[in-house]
C-alpha cells in the first residue's frame, strides 16, 4: 500500500500507536462489502469498508453479481459460499512474490497476486417492513488470503449480528480487525471480534504436510476464553466429495493435470465447496490454473471461458445456472451434482456418463467425461470411508482420512520430481567467491523418466497404473510449470545465499590489496547490488552475513580517494 494513501476514512480513528489506519486490516482483508438486492436496480453495493478501498467499477460490479445466487434464487434463510474474481487489468500487481508472508507460507496458502477471494453470507428472509416483503442482502469479505474456514467462521459470528444492527456494528468489527496482529506463518494468533476471541494457527511452509493442525499452544490467560479454530483453510472434504467418492482418483488426476472441469451444482454453496475441494486435493502442490468456485454469466471472463473458437481453457469452474448446460456442452469434463438429501444415507454415487448425454436439458447427475484414469482407484480407501459412514464416524475424521490419502498420493507423485530436481543443483563446493554462482542444470524429462523405474512413486504408494503416462501428461500442464518455476526460484535463491556466504568468508581485503581503483569500485558496486537483491527477495542468510558485508563495503570505501568516497556514499 502506498504510504501516502493512508489518510483512511475520517470516521476511522487513528490507532494510538501511530500506525496508518486500516494497515493491519489490509493484511487480512481487502475490504468488507454489504451488497443488497435493490428492488429498482438489482444487485448494488450498500456499504464498503474501508470506504476509500481501491476497487475499480468493474470489480465492484463483479462482486455485486457474485454475491447473490444467479439462478434458483428461491433459497430461504442463510447461505454461505465463496467466489474468486480476477482483478482488473492495469491495476498495479501487488508485489507479493517478495512478500515475507508469502516466503514463509505454504505455497497453497500464499496471498493471491492477481485475484481476490470473496466470502459471502447471504440472507433471504421474509420481512414485512420492506417493500415486497423480503430481506435480500449479502455480507461479503474480500481478501487475498485463501482462508476459507477462518473467513466463513468470522462471517458466522458477525453476519447475524450485522443484519440485526446494521452499519455501526460493521464499523466496530472493522476497527477490531484493524487491531489484529498480521498473519505470520507458524504463529498462533488470538483474533478478538464481537466479544469472542478466535484462536488460529497460521500454517507455515515448514509444517509437515498432512500433520495434525490442531494444537493448543497458548497458555496466556485470556478472557474470554478463546474459541479454537482447528484450521484457517481446510474444508470438509468428506462432505464435498460424498457423492463422488468412488471417482476420487479421477478427480485428483483431472485436477493434477489442470484439465478443464465444470462443476454444475444445485447451489452456490455446493458449487464453491466442491471446486475448492478439488483445488485443495493436490495439496501440498499448488494448483496453478485459474479456478472459480462460483461462476456466473455476469462474470467478465464469461466470453473468454466459453468461447468455442479455441480449446477450453485450463480452468475449474463451479456453476449453478442451468443456462451453462448448453454453454459447456463441448467441455471435456462436466461434474453434474444433484440435490443432496440429508437422509442419513450416503448419497448415491455419481456415475460416469458419455459426454453426448449432456446435450439434453434435464440431464441427470453424473460425471460426463471420456477420461480414463492413469492409475487404478484405491478401493480399500473407498470401502473404509463407506464403512466409516455406516458406523457414524464423524465427518471431520472421514475428512482427515480422505485428506491423508490425497496428501500421500500427491507426495508419492511429487517426491521423485523433487528428488530429481534436487539433483540438478550444482555441488556446494562449486560455489566460489571469485566466480558468479554456478547454473542449475536444465530439467530433462527423459532423464527424469529414467529415474522413475528405481526411485519412482511405487516406493511410497501402493497404487498401480501408468505413472509414466501421468508424468508425461503432467509435464504439459500449468501445474508442472508452476511447480518447476517455484522450485527453480527457490534453488536460485539458495545458490545466491550460498554465494553470499562464501563471499563473506573470503579474504576480500586481501584481494583488494593489489587491485586497481576501477576493480575495487566494481567490487563495491557488485556487492551492493547482490545485497540489495538479497534484501528485496527476503533471502534467508546466515546470521551476520549481511552485516559483515555492509561493514566490509564501508571500510573498503574508506580506503579510496575522497572524491570517489563521496560518489559511492551518495549512490
Amino acid at each position, binding site marked *: 500500500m502506498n504510504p501516502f494513501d493512508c489518510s483512511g476514512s475520517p470516521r476511522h480513528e487513528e490507532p494510538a500507536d501511530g500506525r496508518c489506519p486500516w494497515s493491519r486490516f489490509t493484511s487480512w482483508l481487502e475490504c468488507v462489502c454489504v451488497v443488497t*438486492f*435493490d*428492488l*429498482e*436496480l*438489482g*444487485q*448494488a453495493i450498500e456499504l464498503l469498508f474501508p470506504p476509500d478501498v481501491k476497487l475499480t467499477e468493474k470489480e465492484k460490479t463483479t462482486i*455485486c453479481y457474485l454475491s*447473490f*445466487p*444467479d*439462478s*434458483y*434464487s*428461491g433459497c430461504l434463510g442463510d447461505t454461505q459460499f465463496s467466489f474468486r474474481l480476477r482483478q482488473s487489468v492495469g491495476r498495479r500487481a501487488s508485489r507479493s512474490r517478495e512478500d515475507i508472508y508469502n516466503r514463509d507460507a505454504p505455497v497453497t496458502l500464499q496471498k493471491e497476486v492477481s485475484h481476490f477471494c470473496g466470502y459471502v453470507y447471504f440472507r*433471504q428472509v*421474509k420481512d*414485512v417492513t420492506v417493500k*415486497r*416483503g*423480503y430481506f*435480500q442482502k449479502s455480507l461479503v469479505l474480500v481478501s487475498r488470503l485463501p482462508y476459507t474456514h477462518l473467513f466463513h467462521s468470522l462471517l458466522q459470528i458477525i453476519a447475524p449480528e450485522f443484519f440485526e444492527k446494521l452499519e455501526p456494528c460493521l464499523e466496530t468489527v472493522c476497527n477490531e480487525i484493524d487491531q489484529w496482529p498480521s498473519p505470520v506463518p507458524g504463529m498462533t494468533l488470538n483474533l478478538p471480534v464481537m466479544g469472542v476471541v478466535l484462536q488460529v494457527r497460521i500454517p507455515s511452509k515448514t509444517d509437515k504436510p498432512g500433520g495434525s493442525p490442531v494444537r493448543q499452544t497458548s497458555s496466556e490467560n485470556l478472557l474470554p476464553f478463546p474459541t479454537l479454530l482447528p484450521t484457517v483453510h481446510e474444508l470438509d472434504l468428506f462432505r464435498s466429495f460424498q457423492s463422488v467418492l468412488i471417482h476420487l482418483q479421477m478427480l485428483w488426476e483431472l485436477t493434477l493435470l489442470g484439465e478443464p472441469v465444470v462443476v454444475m451444482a444445485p447451489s452456490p454453496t455446493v458449487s464453491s465447496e466442491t471446486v475448492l475441494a478439488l483445488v485443495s486435493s493436490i495439496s501440498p502442490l499448488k494448483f496453478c490454473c485459474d479456478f472459480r468456485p462460483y461462476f*456466473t*454469466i*455476469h462474470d467478465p471472463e*464469461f466470453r473468454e471461458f466459453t468461447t468455442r473458437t479455441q480449446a477450453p481453457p485450463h480452468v475449474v469452474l463451479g456453476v449453478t*445456472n*442451468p*443456462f451453462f448446460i*448448453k454453454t459447456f456442452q463441448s467441455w471435456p469434463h462436466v461434474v453434474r451434482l444433484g440435490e443432496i438429501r440429508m437422509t442419513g444415507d450416503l448419497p448415491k454415487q455419481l*456415475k460416469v*456418463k*458419455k459426454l453426448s*448425454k449432456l*446435450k*439434453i*436439458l*434435464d440431464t*441427470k447427475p453424473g460425471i460426463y467425461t471420456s477420461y480414463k484414469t492413469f492409475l487404478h482407484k484405491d478401493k480399500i480407501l473407498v470401502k473404509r470411508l463407506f464403512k466409516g459412514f455406516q458406523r457414524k464416524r464423524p465427518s471431520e475424521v472421514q475428512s482427515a482420512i480422505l485428506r491423508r490419502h490425497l496428501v500421500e498420493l500427491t507426495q508419492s507423485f511429487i517426491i521423485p520430481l523433487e528428488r530429481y530436481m534436487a539433483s540438478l543443483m550444482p555441488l556446494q563446493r562449486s560455489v566460489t567467491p571469485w566466480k558468479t554462482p554456478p547454473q542449475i542444470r536444465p530439467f530433462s524429462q527423459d532423464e527424469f523418466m529414467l529415474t522413475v523405474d528405481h526411485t519412482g512413486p511405487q516406493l511410497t504408494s501402493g497404487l498401480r497404473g501408468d505413472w509414466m503416462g501421468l508424468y508425461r501428461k503432467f509435464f504439459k500442464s500449468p501445474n508442472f510449470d508452476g511447480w518447476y518455476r517455484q522450485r527453480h526460484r527457490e534453488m536460485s535463491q539458495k545458490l545466491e545465499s550460498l554465494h553470499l556466504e562464501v563471499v563473506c568468508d573470503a579474504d576480500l581485503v586481501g584481494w583488494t590489496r593489489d587491485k586497481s581503483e576501477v576493480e575495487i569500485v566494481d567490487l563495491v558496486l557488485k556487492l551492493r547490488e547482490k545485497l540489495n537483491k538479497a534484501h528485496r527477495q527476503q533471502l534467508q542468510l546466515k546470521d551476520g552475513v549481511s552485516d559483515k558485508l555492509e561493514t566490509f563495503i564501508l571500510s573498503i570505501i574508506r580506503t579510496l580517494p575522497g572524491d570517489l568516497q563521496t560518489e559511492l556514499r551518495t549512490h
Partner: protein
Amino acid sequence: MSVRVPAMSVLPPVRRDRVIVQLPQYFRKEAALHTKDEFHNKVKTACQEQRTGTVGFKISKVIVVGDLAVGKTCLINRFCKDAFDKNYKATIGVDFEMERFEVLGVPFSLQLWDTAGQERFKCIASTYYRGAQVVIIAFDVNDIASLGHVRQWLEDSLKENDPTSVQLFIVGTKKDLSSPAQYSQIEQDALKLAQEISAEYWAVSSLTGENVKEFFFRVASLAFETNVLAELEKSGSRQIGDVVRINSTSSNLYATPKKKQPNCCQ
C-alpha cells in the same frame, strides 16, 4: 430454438390437466397470432398419422420478461404450482420451470425462463434470450409505464434472436386490481401496441387465476403448431413417416431414433 431430447430419456407421464386436444382460442381477436378455430389441418393430420418427427422430443424455450414487480414469477407460479404468494420476493437472476404438455397426443415441453426485472439485469439478460421460441412480455395493467416499457423489452429480447421466428405475447397482469373502466382504457393502448408489434395480447390475474391456464395452453399450442409445421416443411416432398410406413405397419416414428443410439442405456 428447441433442444432435442433423446428418445430413450424416461420422462414422467404428462399430467392429465396438461392434455390439449383442441386449439385454445385467442383472448382478443384484434390482437392474436392467428384467429383460426382449429389447429392447422396439416398439423392435425400429421399428429393423427404420427408424422410429427422429433417435435415430441423437443423443448421450446419461453422467456418471460417485463418491468420489475409486474408479477412475472407469480404468473409462472400460478400456472406451474397453482400457488399464489402476494409478497413474492424479487427474483435474483433467472429461475427455470419445465412444463410438460401433450398436444394432439404428442408430448411437448415448454421450458419457462423467469427473469429479474431490475435495471442491472437488463445489460446481461440478452445472453439468456438467445434461442427463445416464445417471448412473453408482462406488464401491470394498473401501471401504464410498465406498458410503455414493452417496446424496450421487445427490442432487447429480439437482439439475440431472429425476429421472424419468435412468437410474441404481451400479457397484462394483476387484472383483479383494476376496475372495469380503468382496465378497458389500458386495454385499448395494449391492443394497439400488440397490433403494431404483431404480438398476441392477453390479460390475466395470478391472484384469482383468471385466464392463466388458458394463456399458457394457448402459448403451448401455438408453439407446438409452429414446430410441427416447421418439421413438415423441413422434410418437404419426402414426407416424414413415409419411409417408415413402407417398411413397417406400426408406423411408429418414435421407435426409429432408438436404433441410432444402441448403447445409451443408463
